[in-house]
């Protein structure tokens, strides 16, 4: 049995999601007394190697080549990992094994395509992975986040990605002396090419890194009404987000969409205005966030997920809220507090 963690480093640094998955893999391996191997693919990966060694897998295989320096070309990473597992050093030792990647759409694509090419079973986006008597067990969100499915596969080889937001303790993994080796994969050019890239004007600060998010949903009613959310966000030093219906309606760019199929956000405070609280939206917010819900519908599901609830029209609440916050800020400035 082997637990193998796949990490990408197109710009030389191991992705955070990849390191999280490696930490989970190391903990799993320690719990079932197995070895853990990391396979790193990228370009100019010295920094990535250093980060991986801190987590202490038993072995680290490195594929470092210029063609893997393009993070857009998921195709090339699929080729590289496929070559590694099909023709590489582990090809005869993958019985009852698990390949684990971090969270993200590229990682999902790689996991699925690798599963097909290696005749493995794709477990999907998982958390609470554990070995079964034969094969592996994992939990997955289904029905748009309304339910959790505990699934199992007895397949010889399973491939999974780690669900975004899974809590990971990087400090408690082992401090083994990692053996570092290199592998050269045969990678042909990808037929899929990026012809053009255009920066989206005015996309603003990323919501994924924001500590405070003020988010609007269908209840906002129009693009113009988001102006008051921008004002509140500015006052709080935060960023504006949106639910899927608000993005669909064209009121906010999709880069600001929060949810299972939007961005996963980890703010300390999340203010949901005119958002019903559909499971797929809540699935995009880290559980530790403090949530405020402002909605005129007292039965909106958001209130069962929020810490503080206000049943009212946002237009009756937000102007006063902004004024009160400004007054308090001015008071603090005045007293030097």
């Amino acid at each position: 049995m082997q637990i193998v963690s796949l990490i990408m480093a197109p710009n030389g640094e191991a992705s955070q999601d990849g390191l999280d998955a490696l930490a989970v893999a190391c903990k799993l391996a320690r719990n079932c007394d197995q070895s853990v191997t990391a396979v790193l693919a990228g370009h100019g990966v010295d920094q990535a190697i250093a980060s991986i060694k801190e987590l202490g897998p038993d072995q680290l295989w490195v594929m470092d080549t210029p063609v893997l320096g393009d993070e857009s070309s998921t195709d090339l990473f699929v080729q590289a990992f496929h070559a590694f597992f099909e023709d590489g050093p582990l090809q005869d030792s993958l019985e009852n094994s698990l390949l684990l990647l971090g969270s993200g759409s590229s990682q999902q694509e790689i996991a699925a395509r690798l599963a097909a090419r290696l005749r493995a079973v794709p477990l999907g986006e998982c958390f609470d992975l554990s070995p079964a008597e034969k094969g592996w067990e994992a939990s997955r969100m289904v029905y748009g986040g309304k339910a959790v499915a505990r699934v199992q596969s007895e397949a010889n080889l399973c491939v999974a990605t780690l669900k975004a937001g899974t809590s990971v303790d990087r400090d408690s993994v082992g401090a083994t002396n990692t053996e570092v080796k290199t592998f050269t994969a045969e990678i042909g050019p990808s037929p899929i090419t990026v012809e053009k890239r255009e920066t989206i004007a005015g996309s603003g600060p990323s919501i994924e890194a924001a500590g405070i998010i003020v988010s609007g949903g269908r209840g906002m009613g129009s693009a113009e009404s988001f102006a008051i959310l921008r004002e509140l966000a500015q006052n709080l030093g935060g960023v504006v987000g949106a639910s899927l219906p608000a993005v669909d309606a064209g009121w906010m760019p999709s880069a600001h969409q929060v949810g299972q199929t939007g961005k996963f956000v980890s703010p300390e405070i999340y203010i949901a205005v005119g958002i019903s609280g559909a499971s797929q939206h809540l699935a995009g917010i880290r559980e530790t966030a403090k949530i405020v819900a402002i909605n005129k519908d007292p039965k909106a599901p958001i209130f069962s997920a929020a810490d503080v609830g206000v049943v009212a029209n946002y237009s009756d609440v937000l102007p006063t809220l902004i004024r009160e916050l400004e007054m308090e800020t001015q008071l603090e400035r005045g007293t030097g507090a």
Partner: protein
Amino acid sequence: MHVVVCLSCILDPELPSSRFRLLEDQMGVADNGIPHTMSPFDEAALEVSLQVRDQASDTMISAASVGLEEADDVLRRALGLKADNAVRVDAGLVDMQNPVTVATKLKAAIVALETPPDVVLIGREYGDWDDGTIPPLLAEELGMGYVGLIHALHSDQDGITAERERKETIETIRAPIPFVASVTNYPSNRIRMPILKNVVMARRRPITLVDGAAVDDQRVGLTLNQLQIPERKSACRMLEGEPQEQAAELASVLQEWMSTGGR
């Protein structure tokens, strides 16, 4: 050009959590009488295919689905928007839980169409059980290239390009046909309204049915042990009084949270 759109039937995503119940054995959802609908991502995929036809009127659009009889409703919706063909492969609930089975059956649906596709479009998550695994799996089953999370397609003299948003940039991607692309929702691909006459005519248009049991899937499966509804946070503190009073109290709460780091 032949564009195949894979459509799935899902539980209405707007369903309030209070109406979402599990069966007693916790192996399924109590969905009698619960409305089913086309997923917003499948709607986006269908709209993208219609936009391709807006650009090139000789484009053939085929709608394919895997699922129970209720999936015929989403196929009829595509026919009501003047899709040229519709095919469904029969599949039960247990089949829908395994992405490999679904991908294999989708391939069978596409093969049953006879004319090979140039582009296969599929919503970024297929059905209630998928989280994005099925689209790239389908590409591998079909032996085609794959582009994930596009929101538009364009054709020019050199072939086909796809547009997708990635980290605050819009990428234009060129892919040789045939390829599979997963589609995500975007303001430019909101599904159009059908013409009533076409919706009425769609009721009489045939849907090819393929026996799913005859589709062979050799792979060892994925089995469900149990379904659970995750517990949400306990009591929400509901503020009281007039809106302005609640606003003032909320301001205090926010200031307290910010001064203690939101914890």
